[in-house]
């Protein structure tokens, strides 16, 4: 078994980048058994635009102190319908996607509409933060993200007093995203999501540009995605190209598709079941194959209740699920 399973370690002791690279080199050499595949590693500029690169970040001070999900699981078990509906599709079918160059356009009810390229985004202050990630499908991971607080970006564009929501939009690029091509389209593109402005400004809300010490792989939403750790994973919109500040609650893709199954808020809530499955428990991915006991109770707000519950004071969360 060559799976990497770290024990519970604080974020500061997460395997340094150097050893990640070594291990990957060894795996690659082993798999390729020759120079053919090893060659691109020696010259990072050649044909490996999609290959994650080391990404430096300051420690962000967030760590639930739980065992990290093995990187191999976090980067191969994904939901990213732009590349296909299967869990393995995003990794297998995102090789053509080129996230560079990139920019996010921010407009709507802001004093200073702007377009941010990757350098401008990185300049907003990258931090490494380990968060729990709870998918609406009742599985979860623990992922060391690298990102900047969304509030830092919002400060730059100076939201107007009447702005109440932030709408997000994923790129549409059918020629590089096989899930957006063909006769059958599972979702309407672009994928859209939204947050209330106070949720977007919350210190826990980040825009991630990396994980496990590296830039985001395509399958995880390269080059920049939203991470809202107290909400179900589908709120974490990927490969973002546009943000618009609005007064009205914006549309969100899954809510539009099945409003009885996916709410706008989508706060992790063990007391509100999905119509087709219970949300009371979750399966922590990478916790030991068939027989390892990796099932655990789901926590309200995914365990971030102390920080975020007050955002929803006076709201009935079984109605606003």
């Amino acid at each position, binding site marked *: *078994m060559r*799976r990497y399973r770290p024990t519970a370690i604080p974020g500061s002791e997460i395997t340094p980048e150097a050893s990640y690279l070594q291990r990957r080199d060894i795996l690659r050499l082993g798999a390729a058994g020759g120079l053919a595949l090893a060659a691109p590693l020696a010259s990072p500029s050649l044909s490996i635009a999609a290959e994650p690169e080391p990404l430096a970040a300051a420690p962000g001070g967030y760590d639930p102190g739980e065992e990290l999900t093995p990187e*191999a*699981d976090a980067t*191969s*078990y994904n939901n990213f*319908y732009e590349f296909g*509906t299967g*869990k*393995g599709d995003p990794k297998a079918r995102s090789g053509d996607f080129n996230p560079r160059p990139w920019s996010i356009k921010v407009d709507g009810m802001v004093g200073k509409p702007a377009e941010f390229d990757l350098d401008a985004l990185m300049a907003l202050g990258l931090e490494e933060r380990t968060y729990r990630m709870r998918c609406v*499908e009742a*599985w979860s991971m623990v992922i060391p993200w690298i990102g900047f607080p969304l509030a830092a970006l919002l400060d730059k564009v100076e939201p107007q007093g009447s702005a109440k929501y932030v709408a997000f939009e994923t790129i549409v690029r059918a020629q590089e995203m096989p899930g957006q091509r063909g006769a*059958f389209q*599972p*979702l309407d593109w672009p994928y859209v999501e939204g947050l209330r402005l106070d949720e977007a400004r919350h210190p826990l809300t980040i825009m991630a540009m990396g994980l496990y010490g590296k830039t985001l792989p395509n399958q995880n939403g390269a080059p920049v995605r939203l991470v809202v750790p107290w909400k179900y994973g589908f709120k974490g919109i990927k490969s973002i190209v546009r943000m618009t500040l609005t007064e009205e609650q914006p549309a969100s893709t899954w809510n539009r*598709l*099945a409003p009885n199954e996916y709410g706008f808020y989508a706060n992790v809530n063990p007391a509100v079941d999905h*119509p*087709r*499955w*219970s949300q009371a428990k979750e*399966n922590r*991915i990478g916790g*030991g*194959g*068939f*027989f390892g006991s990796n*099932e655990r109770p789901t926590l309200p707000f995914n365990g971030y209740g102390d920080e975020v519950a007050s955002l929803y004071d006076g709201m009935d969360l079984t109605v606003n699920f």
Partner: protein
Amino acid sequence: MPLPALPKRYHPASIWALYAVGLLPAVWTFYLGATGQLIGNPVKIFEHLLGEWALRFMILTLLISPIRDVLGINWVRYRRALGLLAFWYVAMHFLAYMVLDKRLAIDVIVEDVFKRWFITIGMAGFVLLIPLALTSNRWSIRRLGPGWNKLHRLIYPIAAAGALHYCLSVKVIGPEQLIYAGLITILIAWRLVRRHYMDWKRGKRQSSSELASAIPRAD
């Protein structure tokens, strides 16, 4: 349609080979999962694989008689094995769900079966399959006589339940669900038009041949 026919003496062996090959996906994937080689969500991967193979074997079971009607190839000897493989895959799918996924939490399972429609429908399919599996032997066929045929027509609602259960289990219905549900719909619809097709075929053959001998009806 002349096809190189398998010599009769190999028929029993070919049926056993079908059982063995048919069970391979389950055995192999169980091995991968038990040894920690399924990346991501091993339990779901296994559970889904078993459900999908159950549907595949149901489709193959339903294909045997149209193949005979339309192409004139008689593979009826494989139909029992295909049907039983479908049953075993559903049973393993159910076991994987009960033991690996829900860890025998009976309260959760009961709630699922009664509260969640797609599971209720799957469960109905499984329960209805049990009498078919139990009577898939020569003794029962002789014992039940014409009742056996009637009983085994349950495979149509079972396959429909399987397809519906699959479509309702996913977040969005995609090409895979449409293909499985479409095939099952066509195979069931075929039974409704089959008689007309056979009459038409017989009529054509009779008019093209002076020897209008009675063709035994294949039922």
